[in-house]
């Protein structure tokens, strides 16, 4: 599975032999590959007007392109904000709750993300074909798809350390702009242009997987909530800045150069989480290594609202916590 950003085909259908060759290196003679473009066909076409575009069939004959539009940017942030508002609205009647939930569209985004990730996984696992995933910038929906696909396919990504490795690889090092995307969250009126909850969407999809495969993830919901918290505000440097360059070399703030030197000046979230004393609370007591691919159901009935996150401060989790404590007790007793 490969990832990239969009090719700069532009309105004049530019071509780039090196790019074609690069993609050609992964395919054998006569083999076919899939390109999963996370923009709609129309959006991808329109991108040409501003210098972007898609891989033209004539230049990339061995690749079949599939469009799976995934929401990103401002509309996704709006969806998130509306959902949080709806969850906090004590005046909604049962009569109108579901339509209100639907109008936020958040669950539709979860469904779309999981479906696309499954599609990528299917190409690899069932078709044994290579896949290239990209959207526009390659920093948002692209990473959502590649990261989820790996969790679906690869049991080592479902262990605590494997998952941390996945996050480092597919989100942090891959350059998801955390600083821009996880800025003020849902309550802010600032409506920042670059803010969008892609990472939260990823965590929500992870939670759906944990619900559908309760034995297959080594970590618990608590880890997902902790990651959510730390992406927005953290005592650790793991989610700082927007990419490796900024973390190492620094970034321009106005006319000054801000030297972040993240690795020298901050502590790593992983180091803290992995301490024997801390680790315990992030583990799933039901975990047992599952070597197989896990295919989630993306039917609407199978996708639920992540109560643990969206109602975290609204309803008591006491009874569910007691249930988990009981599960822990039963499993440890054996």
């Amino acid at each position, binding site marked *: 599975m490969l990832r990239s950003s969009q090719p700069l085909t532009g309105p004049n259908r530019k071509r780039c032999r090196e790019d074609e060759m690069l993609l050609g290196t992964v395919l054998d003679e006569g083999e076919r590959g899939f390109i999963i473009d996370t923009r709609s066909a129309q959006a991808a076409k329109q991108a040409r007007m501003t210098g972007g575009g898609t891989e033209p069939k004539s230049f990339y004959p061995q690749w079949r392109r599939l469009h799976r539009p995934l929401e990103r940017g401002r509309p996704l942030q709006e969806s998130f904000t509306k959902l949080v508002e709806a969850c906090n609205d004590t005046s909604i009647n*049962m009569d109108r709750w*579901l339509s209100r939930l*639907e109008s936020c569209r958040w669950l539709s985004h979860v469904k779309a993300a999981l479906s696309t990730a499954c599609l990528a996984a299917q190409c690899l696992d069932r078709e044994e*074909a290579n896949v290239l995933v990209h959207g526009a910038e390659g920093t948002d929906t692209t990473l959502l798809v590649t990261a989820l696909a790996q969790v679906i396919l690869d049991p080592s990504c479902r262990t605590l350390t494997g998952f941390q490795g996945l996050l480092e690889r597919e989100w942090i090092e891959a350059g998801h702009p955390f600083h821009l995307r996880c800025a003020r969250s849902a309550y802010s009126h600032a409506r920042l242009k670059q803010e969008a909850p892609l990472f939260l969407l990823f965590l929500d999809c992870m939670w759906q997987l944990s619900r559908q495969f309760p034995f297959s993830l080594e970590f618990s919901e608590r880890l997902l909530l902790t990651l959510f918290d730390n992406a927005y505000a953290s005592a650790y440097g793991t989610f700082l800045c927007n990419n490796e360059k900024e973390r190492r070399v620094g970034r321009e703030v106005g006319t000054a150069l801000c030297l972040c030197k993240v690795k020298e000046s901050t502590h790593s979230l992983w180091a803290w989480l992995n301490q024997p004393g801390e680790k315990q609370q992030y583990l799933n007591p039901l975990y047992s290594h599952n070597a197989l691919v896990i295919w989630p*159901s993306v039917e609407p009935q*199978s996708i639920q609202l992540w109560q643990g996150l969206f109602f975290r401060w609204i309803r008591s989790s006491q009874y569910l916590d007691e*249930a988990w404590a009981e599960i822990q007790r039963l499993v440890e*007793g054996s």
Partner: protein
Amino acid sequence: VENVWLLDRLSSRKAALGTLYLTATHVIFAENGSETRKETWVLHSQISSIEKQATTATGCPLLIRCKNFQVIQLVIPQERDCHDVYISLIRLARPVKYEELYCFSFNPKLDKEEREQGWKLVDLNEEYNRMGIPNNYWQISDVNRDYGVCDSYPTEVYVPKSATAHIIVGSSKFRSRRRFPALSYYCKDNNASICRSSQPLSGFSARCLEDEQMLQAIRKANPGSDFIYVVDTRPKLNAMANRAAGKGYENEDNYSNIKFQFIGIENIHVMRNSLQKMLEVCELKSPSMSDFLWGLENSGWLKHIKAIMDAGIFIAKAVAEEGVSVLVHCSDGWDRTAQVCSVASLLLDPYYRTMKGFMVLIEKDWVSFGHKFNHRYGNLDGDPKEISPVIDQFIECVWQLMEQFPCAFEFNERFLIHIQHHIYSCQFGNFLCNSQKERRELRIQERTYSLWAHLWKNRADYLNPLYRSHHSQTQGALYPQMAPCNFLYKFWSGMYNRFEKGLHPRQSVTDYLMAVKEETQQLEEELEVLAERLENLQKSQLNDNKVKSMQQDRSKHLGLSTSNNSLANTPQEYSSDLKSFPSRSPSQGDEEDSALILTQDNLKSSDPDLSANSDQESGVEDLSCRSPSGGGCLPSEDSGKDSDEAVFLA
């Protein structure tokens, strides 16, 4: 009929070819030549509707919808055969006599004494004794011993000490269907009670001294409070409309010391339509999130569930927190009243959250108090307007509570699903007819078997591993959050999509934890035994070698095998776009994804679909009832190699 196709609703590629059989009690589809000889059995009683669809190139489609929400799509090659099957099923699914029902031919091979014992498992007298009755305030009355006062009530009713026979009879004449106020639940901690009745025949201005005395008697039976609540579970408008027909509700001016309260729960017709709409949503092919949420909201189903729950909470709080008695009624006092009283009892008393207690609760508030099982669930062919999912809603309320309070119930979701299944299956005699009187006339207990005995025998399958009788969740009353809590009500896909295996988590946490619990128990017992032996040996001063070898044996046992990793699943249809690509040949093998094989470990022997299968005497001639894998009656189960895995790509 041979060469019939059974289609899978979720994925059109999973079609099975086989033979369709119609027997006196079941419809059976047997798959051709598959390694596991998979069979699908459906009781005629379960059939809710049959739809003949337009003939296509492959044949005539026939859609069978069941009361337990199973949907079976068949395609029969010849139109003539299809028509015959259709006509036959229509007749078979609409019996006219009770004797046609399965419970009269079902034979679990128990002797007469065992059958009797089965019926005695739940004893309501014992239950009222457990509550603390009879006592200074409540007594048992035999005024209805020949059903002379109210033919839909039981022979034994519990009434306040100060309610004489005269008062009871007088009150019954002032109540719809003569269903006078009687005791449903008594709280011995504070003497508050829940009583139930039907609506008073008050019209606009009618009064009845005895009925007013009856309510006073209820109030007096609780010295801790100087008033009682009267809860009418209908919407106010409906209740008011009833007044024009000479019925209605209690006027606070006429009845001293009552506080009257409406808690609007819609009627049986609204509920029937609501379920219908929800099932239509379930039948949508590849719905979007929008389709689903809109459809679910339009059905109003969860709103109704919440209304019933809210009513139950109100009553539970009145009894436990305020110490005030409550009289509940609706129109006839056998639908919404039953729902609300049983929910309230469940919230108040942890006994009803045990397996035995739950059986008792259903016997008390549903069976003995004359809920019209026959009319509501169509044992016999009757008026379609009487059909309504009343007890289904109650069962769902229990499930919603189980989701909110996972440690509070001794039983699990499977228990609820099997009970619902058997309410419609008519395999046992508990839920036949409309009243105790009718059941006694038919001598049900002598001619059929009790479901409770059957469930009790298999109780290991129905336990909730998280239940501990001394847990905080299992003591005292349960109070679900009332508001804001819309989100707490979830769609119960385990019930309404029960047969669509692809939708559910493949790995059952409940079953795993039960296995863990059992093994832990066994190990602990073994440890005790070994520790004892060790002591004895040490006492008798044997040499060290023997001691060492025992310790080695012990450590071997302690690893719990979680070998259910071999449960693989298969991807659903995420995309139709991969069609034009050449697929891998199926023979390249899918070893790692070899789907769930039906083994004895995976199947629960108590599953009703299996128990129906295992009856030798149900009138099946040429089929041997036991298929090697233990039944395989769960439709759309992935069995064997999923060899046309990649078909959808072709």
